[in-house]
């Protein structure tokens, strides 16, 4: 069982942070504490700051190739944020009754910019308001959210695309049973923050996923293959039971078969697959790498989408399988906020 960073000694976490030896969870917690003005953490940060600066200043400088600067300049000029329509509700009742169309606003959200405190937390709040967030093509992303704090509504002041923000949280659906750590993981995601809102683009018809129908058939024919129903979560929860995860423990390979799935923009965000292994700490699921959903995707004979899955480490006892939406390239340890698919092998 891993300890919460809240239990950590600020001096210890500061030492480890300074030399890049803190875990992602520890580092993020420490940064939040420092940024929030916690006196003990600020004091420790000041203590280790000279070490940090000296270490990072000890590296070499290497001139990048000429073309890289141009590529970066071009890339930032083409990143325009995501265009979405937000439904703004003034109360939970209004969310349930349905929101007045006059409250719907088409806005362009820039990740990390354009909102009053220029933080993703605000973008997330705007998204979760939604419970009723829809894309500009009318596709619902997040029905069923519950307003927790109406007074938190405020107007965005920065940027020309200002929008109104409500602090709300999706109702968490708790799960019990033997997979306690996993249920906490899912619950955290249910109360989730849609950090991905800036990555959402107006979606058209759902695209098939890259995969190989022949490989999938091969895996399905293996003896003792597990077939586990997959439930959409978080931003994709409305899609419900959208397919299955098929896993061969013997071959350590599997595949996702999905009726539908939302495409991603690989330059900004990618889907990442995770295994919960009964022989490992469920707080740190095993990554199976990242994948994209794009125009180039393939499908099986029934028209279902396929994603072949192979974990980075051996899986001894599959408890569950999940997919998150993460920053491009994936992450080593997920913060669990981008959960989009979950398959519980424990029943």
């Amino acid at each position, binding site marked *: 069982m891993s300890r919460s960073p809240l239990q950590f000694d600020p001096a210890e976490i500061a*030492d480890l942070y300074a*030399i890049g*030896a803190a875990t992602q969870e520890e580092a993020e917690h420490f940064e939040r504490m420092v940024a929030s003005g916690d006196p003990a953490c600020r004091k420790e940060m000041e203590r280790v700051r000279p070490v940090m*600066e000296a270490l990072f200043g000890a590296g070499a400088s*290497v*001139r990048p190739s000429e073309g890289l600067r141009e590529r*970066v300049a071009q890339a930032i000029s083409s990143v325009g944020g995501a265009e979405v329509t937000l439904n703004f509700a003034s109360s939970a009742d209004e969310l349930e009754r349905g929101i007045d169309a006059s409250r719907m606003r088409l806005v362009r959200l820039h990740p990390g910019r354009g909102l009053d405190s220029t933080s993703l937390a605000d973008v997330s709040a705007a998204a979760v308001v939604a419970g009723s967030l829809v894309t500009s093509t009318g596709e619902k992303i997040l029905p069923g959210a519950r307003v927790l704090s109406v007074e938190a509504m405020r107007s965005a002041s920065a940027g020309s695309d200002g929008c109104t923000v409500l602090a709300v949280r999706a109702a968490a659906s708790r799960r019990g049973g033997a997979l306690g750590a996993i249920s906490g993981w899912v619950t955290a995601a249910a109360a989730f923050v849609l950090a991905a809102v800036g990555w959402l683009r107006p979606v058209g018809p759902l695209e098939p996923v890259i995969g190989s129908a022949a490989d999938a058939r091969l895996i399905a024919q293996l003896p003792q293959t597990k077939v586990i129903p997959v439930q959409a979560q978080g931003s994709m929860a409305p899609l419900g039971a959208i397919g299955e995860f098929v896993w061969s423990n013997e071959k350590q390979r599997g595949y996702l078969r999905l009726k539908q799935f939302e495409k991603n923009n690989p330059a900004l965000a990618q889907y990442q697959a995770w295994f919960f292994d009964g022989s490992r700490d469920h707080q740190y699921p095993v990554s199976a790498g990242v994948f994209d959903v794009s125009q180039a995707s393939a499908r099986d004979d029934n028209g279902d989408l396929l994603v072949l899955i192979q974990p980075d480490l051996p899986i001894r006892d599959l408890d569950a399988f999940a997919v998150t939406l993460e920053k*491009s390239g994936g992450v080593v340890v997920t913060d669990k906020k981008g959960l989009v698919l979950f398959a519980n092998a424990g029943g």
Partner: protein
Amino acid sequence: MREVEKSVGEEASLLQRAAGGDRAAFMELYDRFSGRMLGIILTVVRDRATAEDVLQDVMLELWNRSAARFDPSLGSASSWVLRIARARAIDHLRRSGRASAHEARRAEGLPRVEAREQPNYTDHSESFHAALREMPEDERVPLVLAYGYGLSREEISSHVGAPVGTIKTRLRRAVARLRGLVVESGEGALSA
């Protein structure tokens, strides 16, 4: 000293302007930091083309998200962006399945960029590397494996054959020793 403070202040300001969508400020940040970012990425991934891909991804991450999270209380703008660059290089290495532990078997010092890349080390960094080599081995090795090679505490434990708790203690002793060296040298040889 004043010049250093001015530069640090300018860099923080550039980062904040970039977070607000100022493309010119962002490209100035690129001009100031890309060399050192590529240096730190190259020490981890060891391949120029891959390192430039990682650098491009980091720059886009800064533009899209991370610049807005910069807080001067968390260090200078340069250490902030270099920390992100190092983290993404390590992420890449882990995803690609290339464990670097075997390369760090002796762990006598921080990994260096190969000469053919024509790396530019400052006098400060040369002094720092020299000081590191003088540290007791049981502190230097975990420090180099953690910072230089991005190994987790558990991986270091396995690499050096000592319990994780012992590794943590040694890492903290190494930080204390480094801090002593940096502070002793005042604003001089060891500080960046």
